[in-house]
């Protein structure tokens, strides 16, 4: 069972889609809920039709520009949000005065539901990608910020003292100890942060845009085209999985120095 786990996982997927297809079939199941036999497929769509839409998107090439836009927004939101979070996290982590001053504001801004800012960003940055990037940044920033802030305060005092004794000045201490240590904290929140950047991009598109996968879904919903909506959701999910996989690869490359739990000590 263990060895062929993926076969079972795929089988599960096939089973779910088959059941979905069968249950949504008009008149296959006696219409005890809805008087109209086509209702089930109207509400839930049909996997066959959904896959046809996906296929047409990819074979016709219509989807690529939308995916590209969403990817751009996600990447920009992540990079800008992470850089801001890293910088401000380091600053506040190292300066007790600044941190005491800003603490209530940071808490307040983090508590605020940032999705409501989306319309404001649209007014400020227009309907292009930047309003989505801005929304993503507000989501990514706090995740990275809190991780870095915590990380800076938990840098091992022995490592710090040792580095001081080796002759590091304040700037070198930042570069040799605080920054690498904080970076490892950024990476530990990487999966969440990239996920948040993606959420920001899609929600932003959904609320008002002319391109992007979120826009596709929003358009289809306007036309009650449930199959296209599900096709969009499917593409988004697959896209998120690919992103997550890419993040995993980057993480493994950049954090080679971190002990892996299963790794034995080499003598």
């Amino acid at each position, binding site marked *: 069972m263990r060895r062929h786990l993926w076969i079972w996982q795929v089988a599960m997927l096939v089973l779910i889609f088959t059941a979905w297809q069968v249950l949504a079939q008009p008149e296959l199941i006696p219409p005890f809920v809805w008087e109209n036999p086509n209702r089930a497929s109207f509400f839930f769509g049909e996997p066959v039709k959904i896959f046809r839409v996906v296929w047409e998107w990819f074979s016709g090439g219509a989807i690529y520009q939308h995916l590209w836009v969403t990817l751009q927004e996600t990447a920009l939101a992540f990079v800008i949000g992470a850089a801001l979070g890293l910088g401000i996290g380091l600053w506040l982590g190292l300066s007790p005065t600044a941190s005491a001053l800003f603490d209530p504001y940071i808490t307040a801004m983090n508590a605020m539901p940032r999705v409501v800012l989306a319309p404001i960003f649209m007014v400020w940055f227009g309907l292009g990608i930047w309003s989505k990037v801005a929304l993503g940044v507000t989501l990514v920033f706090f995740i990275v910020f809190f991780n870095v802030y915590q990380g800076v305060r938990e840098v*091992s005092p*022995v*490592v710090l*003292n*040792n*580095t*001081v*004794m*080796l*002759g*590091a*000045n304040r700037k*070198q201490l930042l570069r*040799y*100890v605080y920054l*690498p*240590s904080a970076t*490892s904290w950024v990476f530990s929140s990487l999966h969440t942060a990239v996920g948040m950047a993606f959420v920001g991009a899609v929600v932003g598109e959904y609320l008002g845009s002319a391109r992007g996968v979120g826009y596709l879904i929003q358009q289809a919903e306007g036309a009650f085209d449930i199959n296209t909506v599900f096709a969009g959701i499917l593409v988004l999910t697959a896209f998120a999985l690919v992103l997550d996989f890419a993040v995993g690869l980057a993480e493994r490359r950049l954090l*080679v*120095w*971190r*002990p892996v739990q299963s*790794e034995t*000590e*080499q*003598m």
Partner: protein
Amino acid sequence: MTAAVEFDRVTVTFASRAGAAPYTAVKNVSLEIADGEFVSVVGPTGCGKSTLLNVVAGLLKPSGGQLRVFGEPHGGINRRAGYMFQSEALMPWRTALGNVTAGLEFRGVDSRQSKDRARDWLARVGLTGFEDHYPHQLSGGMRKRTALAQMLILDPQILLMDEPFSALDIQTRQLMENELLELWSANRKSVIFITHDLEEAISLSDRVVVLSAGPATRPIGEFAIDLPRPRDVAEIRLTPRFIELHDRIWHSMKEEVLKGYAQTRNRVVS
């Protein structure tokens, strides 16, 4: 000749946390370490041994008295001292080589040259072939060797060692002690070696200083160790002179150790 390190009635009092009384870790310590001398400081647990080292390192400012380094009163980080800590102090995100070159990089030595010198030092502590390993990929003993190379590459005039080998098993520990003696005798520095292990102290040092139990620790005895060098730390423990010295020092320490033990126990109970 001026002493490498001179404590002149040094007192260290830690400010209290809300409510508690201030804690005096060491009081009126006067002690001299000559240039090139290997001095061990022994004392019961929790008696402020590390506090003394931190004062020499400049990580702590004495609340009273003065510390002189080669005759000069000193404040701030002691640039002439190298410090080997008890717990893990390597930068986990740098390889063994990167850790050893760090000090040279801070001093602006060119990268090629510092790498060459670091490779040479890693070879001297027996770590050739492990240059690209990260600390977590090295064993405890290898990490200590890396820390030793990291400190010695800067050629400090004073070595401060805070129970550096206490986390190692006894065999590795004796190996490391012999290696330390070998490196030290090739280029004699002043060493202040903190330990709670009397045998380690005697087998390594020129002089053993015994501290009283804390708080307000002060030296209560000094013993010159006249054992011949070069020494093998495992063999020298079996010589009659070693046993005699051990007896004498232990006798003077015993009371303080019991005192320290009673205090620790009381602290646990209360």
